[in-house]
């Protein structure tokens, strides 16, 4: 009986998304527009280029970063301001962005995204012709 329940639970776990029991932090970010590019700069210390996920779906930009919990053995944590956890933040972009030309770099724990605006989204000046 007990084994059957366990087996069923294991089967269910295999078909589910892997679940992580950790906090999710919202990284502090700067967003600015300069020229025909939008820049997103986010603080994500402890995130490497491999553990970073950036998804742009329509105009919803999701950045997700996993941190590796350092293994500190035989030491006692006496003061904690950085509990283990991952980063996640979702941005809504107002304008269409050239999805293929997005550049992302991460350096010293700071993620920098460059989102270029396609030609059609740029402001156009319309000349009025006097008749």
């Amino acid at each position, binding site marked *: 009986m007990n084994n059957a329940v366990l087996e069923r639970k294991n089967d269910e776990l295999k078909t589910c998304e892997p679940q992580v029991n950790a906090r999710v932090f919202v990284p502090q970010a*700067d967003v*600015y527009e300069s020229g025909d590019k939008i820049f997103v700069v986010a603080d994500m210390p402890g995130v490497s280029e491999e553990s970073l996920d950036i998804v742009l779906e329509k105009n919803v930009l999701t950045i997700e970063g996993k941190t590796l919990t350092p293994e500190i053995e035989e030491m*006692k944590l006496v003061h904690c301001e950085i509990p283990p956890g991952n980063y996640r933040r979702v941005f809504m972009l107002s304008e269409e962005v050239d999805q293929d030309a997005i550049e992302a770099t991460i350096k*010293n724990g700071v993620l920098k995204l460059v989102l270029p605006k396609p030609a059609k989204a740029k402001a156009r000046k319309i000349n009025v012709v006097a008749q």
Partner: protein
Amino acid sequence: MLFQELVSPSFFDSRQMNVLQNRLNNLLSSVAARDTEFPLLNTYISEDKALVVAEIPGVDLDDIDLQVVNKTLTINTQRNKEDVSEGTHWYRRERAYGQFSRVIELPFAIDVDSVLASCTQGVLKIELPRAQADLPKKISIQSA
């Protein structure tokens, strides 16, 4: 468990109240620290060394100044403003810049010469070995 503690007269024992107060403070401070302090840090202690882990995203290694005097560690950092061209329109500005300083008092004296510090992906790790003179010594008893 809690209920039992509540009804027992020892609940009003000041020592237990202090423990409760400390736990509450710890719970609240870890949430509040995220907004006000920079860099955020964890401190680990063992018998012969201490380890301080600090989050310093976007700080150049040249701008980190570490000082150890006896029991205290001082971290002075500086984060520079983002280089932007003129005519930039800001949508969001949450990342702080400027000069930051934090002072940590450790429970024992530090061997200043063998302090090790490394930095990867914006996480600074400082290993602080306990000073030899400060290590506990076992005293052997001689039979007379």
